[in-house]
């Protein structure tokens, strides 16, 4: 029995042993496979979206930065910083975005108002109509304002973090900036890629498709209407209801439609509490005066907030030897029709008396003294704000809206607005009717060197006539295709054939 007991024990122990052995063998053979099975099935359940793409915990990225309204306001201020552009004094990298600081090259210098002093460099391409698609200043403006569009679209993409009380206002502000940037780009380049959202690197269809102008204008009008509905008139250096109304009136006048609506918009701005400065000079040297509706703010200090264009308009004070110099034609027009505005709009270059300079934006109010180059503050770090919209522009747009595409008007409302502008200029003779030519001339002498002339000529259908004559008289080579800028060559190259160039380039 003992034997059997032992046998049994043995046999059970054996059994156990054999079971365990089998078990271990199984494990050994299958371990690897089972481990793999476990891991594979585990991977289906354990990895979240960010497993391979973790949010950096020691740094902030744009995807996750905007979590509350204060952070969103950083993005709002960033839009204006984008429009300010970089002052070459602060950052001499030629690939930096100079934005509004180079706008005068592609507007005023392409008109019959200004030119370079010595016809040198890329800037001369603007004045003599030999512009090439490789022009760096054109590319500078283009990429600057697409950057501004991105900044505006980032605000709109993150608008949900704003409080209910301020959400509509912040949205309106971003839409105003988006409309402002699109409006300038579409007037300058024609059909353009439309940035109605943040454009990613992979969105090549958006980056390189030239959306038809009509569609871009639809977005501009929608954005401005949203701005008008939600903004108030608290700011002059930021978007305001009046700025959006004035800009929408300008859009309608540019399209040649909705004249009555444009008139209503102008009247709304005129009745919003703005007033003409009694002294023309004060418009430009009394910062944020009652006439200013929207201006881009600059400060002399710090240099990163200053502007460098005031210095460029003087004789070798900035990096160039002198650009945005006044043409003889513009000086003659100001002398003949400007009244007291002529003295405050241009002056003889003290260092080179055969040349004439713009007098509206002397850096920090200093005109450089007898030599033109003596300054107390650094002229290359100017704090002069750049005026985008002011009341007298709106008064003249009021006349244009009442004229409604006709050849003249004698409606009393138009005469009143026109008279106000002229009275301030010392031209107090009573106006009884206004023709289209008179309105165009008045705009030239009132808004000279404020980047309006080229757009006014095009809008009044006078660009080809006036600029052909101007070009012939000065030995330039204007052709009608020069009224649009070329799409920058770099963009054409990057698009690998998707972007088409404007005719004539």
């Amino acid at each position, binding site marked *: 029995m003992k034997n059997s007991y032992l046998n049994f024990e043995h046999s059970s122990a054996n059994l156990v042993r054999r079971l365990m052995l089998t078990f271990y063998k199984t494990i050994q053979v299958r371990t690897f496979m089972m481990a793999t099975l476990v891991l594979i099935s585990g991977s289906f359940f354990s990895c979240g979206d960010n497993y391979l793409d973790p949010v950096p915990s020691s740094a902030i990225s744009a995807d996750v930065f905007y979590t509350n309204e204060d952070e969103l306001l950083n993005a709002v201020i960033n839009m204006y910083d984008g429009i300010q552009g970089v002052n070459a004094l602060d950052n001499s990298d030629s690939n930096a975005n100079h934005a509004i600081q180079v706008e005068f090259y592609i507007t005023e210098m392409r008109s019959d108002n200004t030119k370079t002093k010595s016809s040198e460099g890329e800037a001369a391409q603007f004045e003599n109509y030999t512009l090439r698609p490789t022009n760096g200043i054109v590319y500078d403006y283009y990429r600057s304002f697409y950057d501004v569009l991105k900044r505006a679209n980032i605000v709109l993409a993150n608008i949900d973090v704003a409080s209910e009380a301020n959400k509509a206002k912040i949205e309106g502000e971003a839409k105003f900036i988006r409309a402002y940037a699109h409006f300038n780009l579409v007037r300058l380049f024609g059909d353009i890629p439309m940035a109605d959202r943040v454009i990613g690197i992979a969105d090549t269809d958006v980056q390189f498709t030239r959306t038809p102008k009509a569609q871009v204008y639809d977005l501009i009008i929608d954005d401005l209407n949203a701005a008008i509905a939600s903004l108030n008139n608290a700011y002059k250096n930021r978007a305001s209801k009046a700025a959006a109304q004035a800009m929408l009136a300008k859009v309608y006048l540019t399209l040649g439609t909705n004249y*009555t609506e444009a008139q209503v918009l102008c009247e709304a701005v005129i009745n919003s509490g703005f007033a003409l400065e009694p002294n023309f000079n004060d418009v430009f040297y009394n910062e944020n005066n009652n006439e200013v509706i929207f201006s881009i703010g600059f400060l002399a200090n710090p240099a990163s907030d200053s502007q460098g264009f005031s210095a460029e308009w003087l004789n070798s004070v900035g990096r160039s030897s002198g650009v945005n110099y006044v043409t003889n034609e513009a000086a003659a027009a100001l002398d003949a029709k400007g009244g007291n505005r002529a003295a405050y709009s241009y002056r003889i270059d003290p260092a080179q008396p055969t040349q004439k300079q713009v007098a509206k934006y002397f850096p920090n109010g200093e005109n450089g003294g007898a030599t033109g180059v003596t300054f107390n503050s650094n002229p290359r770090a100017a704090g002069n704000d750049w005026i985008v919209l002011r009341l007298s522009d709106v008064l003249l747009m009021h006349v244009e809206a009442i004229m*409604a595409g006709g050849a003249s008007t004698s409606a009393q409302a138009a005469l009143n607005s026109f008279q106000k502008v002229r009275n301030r200029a010392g031209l107090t003779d009573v106006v009884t009717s206004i023709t289209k030519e008179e309105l165009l001339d008045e705009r030239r002498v009132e808004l000279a060197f404020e980047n309006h002339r080229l757009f006014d000529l095009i809008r009044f259908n006078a660009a080809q006539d006036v600029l*052909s004559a101007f070009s012939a008289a000065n030995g330039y080579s204007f052709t*009608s295709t020069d009224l649009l800028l070329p799409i920058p060559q770099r963009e054409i190259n990057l698009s690998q054939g998707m972007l088409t160039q404007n005719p004539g380039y």
Partner: protein
Amino acid sequence: MKFIQIINKKYRQVLGLAAFISVIAVFISCDPALSAFEFDLPEAGSIADATPPTANFSATQSSIDYRMYNFSNLSVSATTYFWDFGDGNTSSSLDAVNTFPGEGTYTVTLKASDALGVESIFSMTVDVVEPEAPEAIVPFIREAGFEDNSPGSEECGNGNMDGRDCWRISGGTIFGITSSPVRSGSQGAKFDAGSNRVAYQALTVTPNTDYIVTIYYTIKTSPLGSAMRLAILGNAISHASEAEDAIIASAIGDNQDDANEYLPLVLSFNSGATDTIAIWIDSNNVAESRIDDVSIMLAE
């Protein structure tokens, strides 16, 4: 042996010289000057022009002279241009300007060619039309004399054509009809004393235009202090309560000397930034008043 060595040496020299000469010859014969191709056929080795000229242009009418057009040349890959304006004028400049002899339809053709003599032709018809100075609208006032079955009043009010339907406004009490005294026709509008009656009619006008509205009124001689008001509203309204805020011009007539004599009440106004205005007539309800013959015209 020596002879062979000498021969070998010379042979090598000759070989070397021959090799040298042949190398030079190869270089000379590969001279890329055009004369090297003189026995090649023309077109051999050339590539066809991938961008032949394409003619294109746009036309803009001048705003100074309606017969003058500016033509903007949008051609691609061309060097010479020839414009035919369809009225006998031609030009060979890049951009062109042409003054047509008068109204009409002209076919403008641009022939663009390049140095290879390849031509491209593009035509466009230009319709020269003298732009009309748009006539200012003088609106038609319905039931201007408050007569029954006045022309155009079928579309107004409750359709009974009693001379009042086109003057109704929700929230306001319509005036009554009087047959004596009237100024013309057989009916006039009566504004009873102590009863707040109103007349309203919206009209389509040209913006920023001066108009003159005239009505004729008479008020009973007593009680004194009664007056009729003729006003213009700057937009159409849908309820009488909106009238007061919409008034852009008004005039008062308060002559009570003769209960039977109709006197004119005239109001000048400018339509401003709208194409719809409305006439509004009411009274201060002191004495019974009548009006007749409402008219509107352009101020000269």
